[in-house]
């Protein structure tokens, strides 16, 4: 991403326009299109205009995003204080579109200080932080406790847990009370943990439940409403319905003998009914019903299509009709039974959940607490209260500009708050003469936080709303779209366009009826590559013999493990080509076995890999070791804990030493340790620790162990630096614990075990390691190479919903699908559709993380992959345009997608097979000189930056030369597409616009040189109409008995009737004058291109040249030189 880019003017123009602080705007931005950059720019522009920082409110989705945004703004402002006039002018021009002058420069340089010093400062915050501040300002008007505390998520969960337990205890103490009955009903359906989980789900929906109960007028009324919705009578019971099976029967038992007689003449299917009737006769209770139902229903309790055979139906038409009528009745009764069960369990759940919710509200009020939802609700209520008009008035004085980042993640209520704040903007408000704006930027395609209340449909709805309010001549309104990605190459973007092109698919990610907006790459971004690997299917399943397990070291590899290994093998190959580990991002939908297998496989392959991006602290082995240490000290008889500590890096005993201590001992391990002279040092260390544990607080003790006793060093030496995060978090918690509780080691351990704290690793500040993470975690990140590994999970949420939201606002507790009734089926389908839509948005986010290379791979279960899974979506969209090519690891072929057609070079199957057979890395991988050419990173003009890196630093005085090179390059690229007679003018225009820093003579010289080059007779064909720029090329070259894969991009290619001309632009400064001075890599590169093209055009001569942009010179490379370069390449 460090390569210099050519950003087309129209792309810059859109950005400048969006950052124009005078006009309210809404930006719908594609992934990687620089939306956050523009938002920061807009803030800076506001400041440049002289807007008081305190009057800007910038709302982000997370606290981390707020910090990043503020940092970004301050960093740029800080930079400005250091720039010289000219550069600063340029920055001002770039951000505002206008030119800089002395006054502007002076103001720009002061911004940093003023933004820092303003009381209240620049407000970049989450909406919750904004609400907190507001409520603290107006507690009386908002009807909240004057010095309320905001409940964090962990405390909220803990409080709700306690209240749930309280209610359940009361329920069990009074089995005949309302809660007792509810518990008894619920416990039949769900085991304890499941029921608690469902209560948890219900509490998470407390908004909906409270609204429902309020609307119905109470819990009882709500349950009554549920009966009506489900079509059961309030006093129906399981027993009363079971009674009905026979009490209302259309074929009373007295007539069964007659029916049996009629059935006797039938075939097996009919006489089965006789058995059913006979069984029903002698049975009682549910068995009797079940037997009877066998006549009418299948085993799944679906109505039989044919109750009796044709023979009986025709021979006994009255019986046939009566049986059909009875079938209708019992099936309706079965449906009522299902409805009743659904009502009863939902009623039980709501009874208990509503009580917990009510107590939670009371408890918050009593203790002066507000949770996150309250912050939003109370703020809205405050705005709604007529007595609070002056709050709005005061607020109105305070905020002139509202900017919203990640607007797609804003929930409806949060939007309502924003809307209230900006409503005054359009009315003139408190200060009619001040220009006030709203700005929102987001991407509905990237809305993946529905579980946190994000509602993707809102994004477009609110845009329309704002548009109606702001789109007036006085206020001004812009709706802009960012199509250009600053991140990804055209092939990655092309694949995204394809995958989301069908209306059935794009409807999931965008509200735009025209579909997903096109994704455009920057013109000189490396085109990249999209690869589809074949799915890995399980081998023919040989049955596992448990008896052989203890010796079965070559256990069969699951597809997951195979895939993980393949990923690791490929990463290794790419790294041998110069890709850095940090350039690789592996994405999964959820942490699970595949996630773990990939991390493991990478580690085994010796690839640096970041550990899990999130893990439960107490499950980290370094923390387990520390906890075992504490256990062993607290309870000297805990032999196992002591053994664990001794084997841990803290003591580092071997299995053999442990055996010596433990084998055949007569007493505890601790005493054995004390008695054994060989372990005197270990024993005295342990005794010192025991004393330290008694004398110190938990934090003090562990800090002592890790620091003074070098425990951290020992742990890191064995477990690697990733253990640092866990250890730091562990110490933080110890310190945190001491501030809340009486510090005791025992108490800390118990608290830690119960808290199940998670550690999150900051993957953004990545070390040079492969990152393996979930798509959610990767939001906002990018990498050169992205591997989607988890592509065959069913399209939907991570699990089936346990609570269904019915159309009328009520909720229903759902169990198995078969137990659904119609209203629930509909609700389930809606929820499935929402989940499927989010699943597809996740795919969008995942694919757009890739800059150059995107790999889609996955595993297949025993059955076929689920319809609509990621792999299928991508495969269906791309495979027709993919080419099957040998895989990098030589393991068969993979499909490669390129948006722009690569030249159809025949792939030599035998050559591919040869590579595959080798099984080890192909020899050319380890050759250093050729890497430039054969690397999977295509060779593009931008790779010239790498050449710079290899040379001494180019002094700042060379800035002109640099600019000149860029301009020449750009002209060479674009002018050939313009008719010859218009080229001179186009060149002059372009240079006038982009080459302002050059004087007229220099500009004329450049134009003249470029035009002369284009007309050069030797290479006239190269720039004639029909010639092409930046042509991707892939092929195989066999030379010296070896096969080399060539993958690259030819800057200029022309095919004439007799010859093929190729040229590559090079930006070397100074440009070599003689062929001897040309870097050999360039020659090899051209030689390989030529070799590939010779195979394609065997009858034509292939001429190659290098174009030196610095000198604006063309250098033809003789075929002799090229042949030599090719030979050298293979001999190296």
């Amino acid at each position: 991403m460090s390569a210099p880019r050519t950003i087309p003017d129209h792309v810059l123009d859109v950005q400048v326009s969006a950052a124009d602080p005078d006009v309210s705007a809404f930006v719908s931005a594609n992934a990687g299109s620089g939306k956050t950059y523009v938002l920061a720019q807009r803030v800076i522009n506001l400041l440049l205009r002289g807007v008081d920082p305190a009057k800007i409110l910038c709302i982000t989705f997370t606290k981390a995003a707020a910090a990043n945004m503020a940092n970004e703004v301050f960093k740029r402002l800080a930079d400005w204080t250091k720039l010289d006039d000219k550069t600063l002018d340029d920055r001002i021009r770039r951000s505002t579109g206008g030119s800089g002058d002395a006054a502007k420069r002076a103001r720009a340089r002061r911004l940093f200080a003023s933004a820092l010093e303003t009381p209240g400062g620049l407000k970049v915050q989450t909406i919750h932080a904004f609400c907190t501040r507001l409520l603290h300002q107006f507690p009386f008007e908002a009807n909240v406790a004057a010095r309320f505390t905001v409940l964090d998520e962990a405390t909220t969960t803990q409080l709700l847990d306690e209240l749930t337990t309280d209610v359940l205890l009361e329920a069990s103490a009074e089995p005949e009370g309302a809660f007792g009955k509810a518990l008894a009903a619920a416990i039949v359906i769900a085991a304890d943990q499941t029921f608690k989980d469902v209560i948890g789900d219900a509490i998470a929906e407390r908004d909906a439940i409270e609204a429902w109960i309020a609307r119905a007028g109470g819990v009882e009324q709500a349950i009554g409403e549920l009966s009506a919705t489900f079509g059961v009578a309030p006093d129906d019971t399981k027993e009363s319905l079971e009674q009905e099976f026979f009490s209302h029967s259309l074929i009373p038992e007295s007539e069964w003998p007659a029916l049996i007689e009629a059935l006797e003449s039938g075939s097996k299917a009919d006489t089965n009914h006789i058995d059913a009737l006979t069984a029903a006769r002698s049975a009682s209770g549910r068995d009797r019903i079940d037997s009877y139902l066998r006549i009418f229903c299948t085993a799944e309790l679906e109505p039989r299509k044919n109750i009796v055979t044709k023979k009986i139906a025709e021979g006994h038409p009255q019986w046939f009709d009566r049986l059909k009528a009875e079938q209708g009745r019992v099936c309706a009764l079965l449906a009522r039974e299902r409805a009743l069960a659904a009502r009863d369990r939902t009623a039980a759940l709501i009874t208990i959940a509503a009580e917990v919710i009510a107590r939670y509200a009371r408890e918050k009020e009593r203790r002066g607490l507000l949770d996150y939802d309250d912050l939003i609700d109370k703020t809205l209520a405050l705005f709604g209260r007529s007595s609070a008009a002056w709050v709005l008035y005061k607020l109105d004085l305070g905020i002139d500009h509202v900017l919203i980042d990640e607007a797609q993640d804003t929930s409806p209520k949060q939007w309502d708050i924003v809307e209230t704040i900006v409503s005054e903007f359009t009315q003139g408000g408190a200060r009619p003469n001040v220009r006030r704006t709203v700005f929102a930027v987001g991407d509905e395609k990237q809305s993946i936080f529905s579980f946190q209340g994000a509602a993707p449909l809102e994004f477009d709805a609110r845009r329309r709303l704002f548009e109606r309010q702001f789109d007036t001549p006085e206020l001004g309104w812009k709706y802009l779209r960012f199509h250009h990605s600053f991140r990804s190459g055209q092939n990655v973007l092309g694949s995204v366009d394809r995958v989301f092109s069908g209306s059935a698919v794009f409807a999931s990610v965008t509200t735009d009826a025209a579909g997903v907006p096109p994704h455009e790459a920057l013109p000189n971004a490396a085109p990249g590559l999209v690869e589809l690997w074949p799915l890995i299917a399980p081998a023919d399943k040989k049955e596992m013999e448990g008896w052989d397990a203890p010796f079965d070291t070559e256990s069969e590899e699951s597809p997951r493990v195979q895939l993980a290994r393949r990923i690791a093998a490929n990463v290794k190959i790419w790294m041998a080509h110069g890709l850095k580990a940090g350039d690789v991002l592996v994405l999964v939908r959820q942490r699970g076995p595949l996630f773990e297998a990939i991390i493991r496989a990478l580690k085994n392959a010796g690839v640096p890999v970041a550990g899990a991006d999130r893990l439960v602290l107490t499950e980290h082995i370094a923390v387990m070791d520390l906890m075992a240490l504490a256990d062993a000290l607290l309870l000297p008889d805990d032999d196992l804990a002591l053994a664990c500590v001794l084997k841990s890096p803290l003591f580092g005993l071997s299995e053999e030493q442990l055996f010596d201590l433990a084998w055949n001992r007569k007493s505890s391990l601790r005493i054995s340790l004390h008695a054994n002279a060989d372990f005197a040092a270990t024993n005295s260390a342990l005794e010192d620790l025991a004393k330290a544990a008694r004398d110190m607080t938990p934090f003090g003790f562990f800090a002592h162990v890790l620091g003074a006793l070098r425990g951290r060093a020992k742990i890191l030496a064995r477990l690697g630096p990733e253990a640092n995060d866990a250890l730091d978090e562990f110490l933080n918690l110890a310190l945190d614990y001491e501030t809340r509780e009486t510090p005791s080691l025992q108490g800390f351990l118990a608290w830690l075990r119960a808290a199940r704290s998670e550690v999150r690793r900051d993957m953004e500040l990545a070390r040079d390691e492969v990152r393996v993470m979930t798509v959610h975690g990767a939001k906002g990140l990018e990498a050169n190479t992205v591997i989607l590994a988890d592509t065959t999970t069913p399209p939907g949420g991570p699990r089936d919903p346990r609570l269904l939201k019915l159309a009328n606002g009520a909720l229903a507790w759902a169990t198995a699908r078969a137990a659904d009734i119609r209203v629930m089926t509909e609700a389930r389908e809606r929820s499935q559709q929402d989940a499927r839509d989010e699943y597809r948005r996740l795919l969008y986010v995942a694919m757009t993380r890739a800059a150059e290379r995107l790999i889609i791979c996955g595993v297949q279960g025993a059955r076929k992959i689920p319809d609509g899974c990621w792999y299928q979506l991508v495969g269906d969209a791309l495979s027709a345009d993919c080419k099957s090519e040998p895989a990098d690891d030589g393991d068969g072929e993979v499909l490669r997608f390129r948006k722009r057609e690569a030249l159809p070079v025949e792939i030599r199957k035998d050559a591919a097979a040869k590579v595959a057979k080798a099984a080890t890395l192909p020899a050319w991988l380890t050759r250093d000189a050729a890497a430039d050419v054969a690397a999977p990173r295509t060779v593009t003009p931008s790779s010239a930056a790498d050449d710079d890196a290899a040379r001494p630093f180019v002094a700042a005085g060379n800035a002109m030369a640099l600019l000149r090179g860029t301009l020449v390059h750009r002209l060479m690229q674009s002018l050939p597409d313009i008719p010859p007679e218009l080229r001179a003018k186009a060149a002059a225009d372009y240079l006038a616009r982009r080459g302002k820093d050059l004087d007229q003579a220099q500009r004329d010289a450049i134009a003249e040189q470029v035009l002369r080059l284009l007309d050069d007779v030797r290479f006239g064909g190269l720039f004639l109409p029909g010639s092409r720029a930046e042509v991707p090329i892939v092929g195989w070259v066999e030379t010296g008995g070896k096969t080399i894969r060539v993958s690259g991009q030819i800057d200029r290619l022309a095919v004439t009737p007799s010859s093929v001309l190729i040229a590559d632009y090079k930006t070397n400064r100074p440009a070599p004058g003689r062929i001897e001075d040309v870097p050999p890599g360039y020659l090899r590169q051209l030689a390989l291109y030529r070799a590939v093209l010779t195979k394609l055009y065997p009858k034509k001569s292939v001429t190659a040249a290098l174009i030196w942009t610095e000198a604006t010179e063309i250098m033809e490379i003789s075929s002799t030189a090229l042949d030599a370069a090719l030979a050298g390449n293979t001999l190296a």
Partner: protein
Amino acid sequence: MTAVEDWLRDPYTIYARYVLKLQPLDAVDTPPGARDRGTVIHGAIGDYTAQFAAELPADPSQALRKLGDKRFAPLGDFPEARAFWWPRFLRIAQWFVSWDAARRDGIETLHAEIRGELKFPVGKREFTLSAIADRIERRKDGSYAIIDYKTGAARTEKQVRTGLAPQLTLEAAILRAGKVESKLGNLAPGSVSEIAYVTLKGGEPAGKQLSVDFKEGTPDTQADHALGKLKALAAQFEDPATPYLSLVHPMWRNHYGDYDHLARVKEWSLSGGDEEDGE
């Protein structure tokens, strides 16, 4: 007997528990979990089976409830556990009493929590396989039925057949050829006609009988197969060169039990490479 399963799945567990003699201790204030619920409910059903093996009480439901009360008493400190489990136990009791009553029609004698053993030579030593069966029925036709109460999931036919869950087939082997002592004297060795799990979950339905319907062979032939395999296994571990590997079976590759930490599973399962063989 459960030791045999550990032996098959995570030999290191056997090594740590029986060779190093390291026993896991529960933290003092650990609230009861699924395992304890199993113990309590299993215990009450077992007590009932044992106490009324010869004759059913006048009011079976009442009797089982009483036994349940006794078993639940230690949970007094955890009212929450009782709140959830007692209602389930009542449902289980109700189901079990009628299942048990119906089942008795075909039973000659009933034995609960009954211990048996089978000895066979391994090298120069003698290997003793011992087991305590939840319930053994001597059927009226002279054959035996072996029944295991499960408060969790029952084993599948495949797990039983392939040796991943060899408990019941090995119990059958003991019944066929070993010594099983009952209050009524040693049981005569005999054929096993049924191997079944009875799940007791307390949901809907509260209980369920799941007889293992072998895809191949009969309970008798499966018992002989399992015993043969066990003998081979014992012979192999008798060789001191055979390592007690940790987590060899891929099904349990990431976590198995109490000794994962001691085996440092998390360390090598991530960093790989090193062969931890426990000896």
